[in-house]
């Protein structure tokens, strides 16, 4: 049985437009899946629908089943808020694209990090403070970050903090929604390596969302290609790159190739 089973997931905007149409995929416990697609193809919407948090006014149909160890197997679509709330964080959680807006601007980083730690581990007082510092250490952030507001640290540090908050939930599945897109190129690689290492170490499943084939290739080899709300292709990344069937995938691959050869040429 899969940890996450999405089948025929359809999301409609308030005006009836289908933003996601019949999307299906699975993620096994501890496995990884990449979700590739251009901006506006419905990647973030997929992540939110999995969490049972679609934007107000949208109608969701189809099926999203989360089956995490130690938690009741749950059909997310149409589930009551109370059932979902027990699931969020522990079955799955999300690292968002833009860490500046995903962190509360008026709460210090340490306090925001303490929130999930208190909930999952039942810590209070000085053990909680120690756990916050340990969690920061794990994502290679200095202690002083705990006392800083989000706007007082760099973009890369903010995303590390957001990753620490997500890991503190101890989720069975981590959904990373373009976690490095908002970052400088040099920082991107570091954050990606960090995420990769921590997910492996904790044997978490990973749903990695990106518009960038090269980035996805670094963390996973199984992908779903999303185009205007449709899953146009899915399977092994190497197969798809070698033999893209859908015209959109072909574009994706050839632009990645062009970039590659440009980089090669520059390196020479």
């Amino acid at each position: 049985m899969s940890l996450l089973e999405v089948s025929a997931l359809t999301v409609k905007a308030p005006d009836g437009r289908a933003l996601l149409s019949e999307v299906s995929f699975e993620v096994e416990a501890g496995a990884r899946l990449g979700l590739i697609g251009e901006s506006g193809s419905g990647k973030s919407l997929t992540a939110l629908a999995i969490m049972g948090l679609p934007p107000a006014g949208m109608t969701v149909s189809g099926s999203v089943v989360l089956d995490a160890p130690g938690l009741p197997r749950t059909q997310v679509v149409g589930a009551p808020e109370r059932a979902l709330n027990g699931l969020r964080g522990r079955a799955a959680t999300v690292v968002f694209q833009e860490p500046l807006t995903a962190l509360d601007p008026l709460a210090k980083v340490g306090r925001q990090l303490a929130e999930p730690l208190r909930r999952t581990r039942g810590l209070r007082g000085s053990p909680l403070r120690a756990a916050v510092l340990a969690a920061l250490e794990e994502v290679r952030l200095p202690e002083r970050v705990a006392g800083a507001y989000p706007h007082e640290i760099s973009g890369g540090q903010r995303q590390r903090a957001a990753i620490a908050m997500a890991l503190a939930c101890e989720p069975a599945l981590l959904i990373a929604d373009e976690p490095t897109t908002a970052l400088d190129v040099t920082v991107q690689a570091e954050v990606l390596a960090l995420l990769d290492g921590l997910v492996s170490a904790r044997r978490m499943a990973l749903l990695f969302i990106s518009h960038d084939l090269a980035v996805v290739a670094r963390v996973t080899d199984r992908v779903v290609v999303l185009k205007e709300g449709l899953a146009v292709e899915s399977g092994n990344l190497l197969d798809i790159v070698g033999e893209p069937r859908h015209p959109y995938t072909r574009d994706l691959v050839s632009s990645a190739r062009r970039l590659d050869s440009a980089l090669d040429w520059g390196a020479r």
Partner: protein
Amino acid sequence: MSRRRSATLAVGCVLAGVIVAVAVVSLFWTPFSPDDTSGGRLAPPGPPHLLGTDKLGRDLLTQLMIGARVALTAGIGSVALGGVIGVAAGLLAGFAVRWLDDTISALLDILIAFPTLLLAMLVVAAREASLGSAILAIGLAMSSIVARLTRVLVKRVLAQDYITASRTSGTSWPRVVAEHVLPNIWPTLLVNLALQLGLAVLAEASLSYLGLGTPPPNASWGRMLQEAQATVLTAPAGAIAPGVLLVVLVVGVNLIADGLRDVADPTRRARGSGSAVDPGSPAMGLDQGGSAVDLDPRRGP
């Protein structure tokens, strides 16, 4: 910048503090009794009447001191009333389901469009001309403005990524509200309530000027202005003194509001002191000033 801002706060506190001190002293001591008319009509400044007397022979300094108390009571009372009703209604609308939100919003729009002066006249007609009536009218008018602001703030915070992020990590709804929604709306609310306090003081003076406020023997600066109007050329102190005190209090309160804006918001506090990035004001514009409780008598209802 933050130093300049805390200076703003300090100056505001000093100005408003002077008026508060005068009001507190008036509770225990005034040079004369407020209804003592033994001083003779329009006596010039000098002992024993430091600022002279008004046209009924009452001591001007005594009147001013009591006026300070009335002005502060009106300001604080109106903000307490308008704040409690307004914040409660605004929170209700902000979190409510669609139809309830629409209903409350429609009611607020009507209340906001309702002239405050007309509201005050109705309240006075139903009760009597008193400080309580003035506070009731000003507070009710203010509550609609505060409610609308609160509702917008709640809606705006609820649409922020950090609320969604917090919910994806399994934070319960009451906790999201307590830990993220309320802390993110209160700095703006606090600043607005401080601005409203200044406006309420002016509104009470206007109502009293029109005879809809505090009755004698308790003096209101607004009524003092009205009474001194006829003799402003022969006895200018009677008009100038309450006018100056009114300005001191309102400017002081507005400076406090301005200073609070920065003290209450860490993203503003740090700006200009070498923070890593400009946050693009994630805490939302704290810049919406107070929509005035408009009682300017020259413009009429």
